[in-house]
């Protein structure tokens, strides 16, 4: 790609992203999904499970909140798929495809607006978290790194969802499919409870699940860890930032080309 085409892709992507953001503002469902559900998640888990689960050397809320961050931004990334499927169904993609715009702009715009949406989500969750007693015990830089890594990971998931959204027939299918996949993915992990209580085979899966590594990385970067409760010995959790970044690179390398190719083919159904 030449500098010109990249510039055009970004410019057109920004136009499409702006359109998606206007949409979030105008569709009450999406706005509620983005703002209310994260608050509800934090309150529910903190108060309902908070007393039942014990983490050595650490309050459960501090342990929990980075996990909820991870789960929620991953769910936030599913908007990408549902949004694209919806645009195909309504013929909007056909309109875009008949315009002399950059081939990747719709996807760039879609995934970008979903990151921005996730920024909003994570801000609201952080404020709610602070209100229920979660604290950042590291430096500003480390904390910023933690937020960035969460957003980056969600961005990579967005590209999987983009591909899913382009191959399924309706937006409902995206929603069903993503719940079927993302629920197990975010629960068979260290998001809500420590994995050392898991049955043996499940524990290995959980420890190598990138959702666990992004959560572990966030905990470390926010300073929500304790010497009395060391991370499992698996390499993935000993080097959670590196392991997460490797997944991000892998997912982007696979799903950006797959999605762009699928976009070129996607026909109105």
């Amino acid at each position, binding site marked *: 790609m030449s500098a010109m085409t990249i510039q055009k892709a970004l410019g*057109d992507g920004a136009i499409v992203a702006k*359109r998606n953001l206007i949409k979030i503002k105008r*569709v009450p469902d999406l706005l509620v999904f983005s703002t209310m559900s994260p608050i509800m998640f934090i309150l529910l888990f903190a108060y309902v499970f908070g007393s039942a689960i014990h983490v050595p050397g650490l309050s459960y809320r501090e342990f929990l909140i980075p996990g909820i961050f991870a789960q929620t931004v991953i769910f936030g990334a599913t908007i990408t798929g549902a949004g694209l499927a919806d645009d195909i169904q*309504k013929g*909007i993609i056909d309109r875009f495809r*008949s315009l*002399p*715009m950059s081939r990747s702009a719709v996807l760039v715009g879609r995934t970008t607006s979903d990151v921005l949406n996730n920024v909003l989500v994570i801000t609201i969750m952080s404020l709610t978290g602070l209100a229920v007693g979660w604290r950042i015990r590291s430096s500003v830089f480390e904390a910023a790194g933690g937020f960035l890594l969460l957003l980056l990971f969600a961005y990579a998931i967005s590209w999987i969802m983009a591909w899913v959204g382009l191959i399924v027939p309706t937006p409902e299918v995206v929603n069903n499919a993503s719940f079927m996949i993302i629920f197990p993915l975010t629960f068979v992990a260290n998001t809500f409870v420590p994995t050392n209580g898991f049955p043996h085979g499940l524990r290995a899966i959980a420890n190598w699940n990138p959702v666990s590594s992004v959560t572990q990385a966030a905990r470390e970067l926010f300073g929500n860890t304790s010497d009395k409760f060391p991370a499992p010995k698996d390499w993935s959790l000993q080097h959670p930032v590196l392991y997460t970044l490797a997944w991000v690179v892998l997912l982007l390398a696979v799903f950006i080309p797959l999605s762009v190719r699928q976009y070129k083919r996607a026909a109105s159904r």
Partner: protein
Amino acid sequence: MVDVIRATGLVKTYGELRALDGLDLAVPEGTVLGVLGPNGAGKTTAVRILTTLLPADAGSAEVAGFDVARQPGKVREQIGLSGQYAAVDEYLTGYENLDMVGRLYGLGARRSRERARELLERFTLAESADRPVKTYSGGMRRRLDLAGALVAQPAVLFLDEPTTGLDPRGRTDMWEVIVELVKSGTTLLLTTQYLEEADRLADDILVIDHGRAIAQGTADELKAQVGGERVEIVVGTPADLASAQAVLAGLADGPVVVDEHTRRITAPVKGGAGVLMEALRRLDTEGVAVLDVALRRPTLDDVFLTLTGHAAEAEEQNKGKGKGRKPTTAQLEETSTR
């Protein structure tokens, strides 16, 4: 004259179904081609191939001198498309929709804004410009969609059934808009299910069915083949069908069609109301009870009847093709004088 749109031997198959089966067409610069056909004829498929949305399985097409398969980007710079279903964003306002399209055409922020306001004014949408499209009526959406196709003042325009779903008033308005456009030199390919519409807007009409051209010519040439008006009567009892048919055959200038199920008899005639009166007089003399009577212009059904020897729908059943097709009742407007 140069052909701005030209397609040769286009084929598109979906499994067993040949949606396009070797379609040829040509549209000289500054003219209007009306592609006329019933549901499932392949109109949308043809438009999608010509606008680079769909690759053809065989054949080739050029728009404004560029090959649709090899230079799709160049083609897109030259064309405007308004698809069969209005592709406007419900949650954006009319203004935001057009502004976005302008920017994506690369008009720049200022020009896009101006152009959006200009078009909203021209399509009488100025008052609703800043309301989300969700609150627009079907006709307003359709107009906005057409405005979207015109943002960059394309030299070549594709309109897929631009008036389907509009009320008679909306249809007349849309026709006026299209006539204006064509005056300014735009080359237009338009699809329709209405002979009357093609007649009104197109210089040249291509009738297609099962993905193939079955006739081509000016509206007058087609009408000369199809004949003029139709007298249509419905008789009270099946017993009267035979005598009524005989009466109409005496006045008709083409084959008389009898539908026993609905007891409807249709006869192409020359001479309009005079012939209708004469028919009624003779039927009265024969003692035939007439339930309903109409004089109407030829419809797509009549075109098919004449060109293929059977109605659009019947042909499909006979050939047993069209698996998974939409029902192909060529829905026809009746300009009846009841």
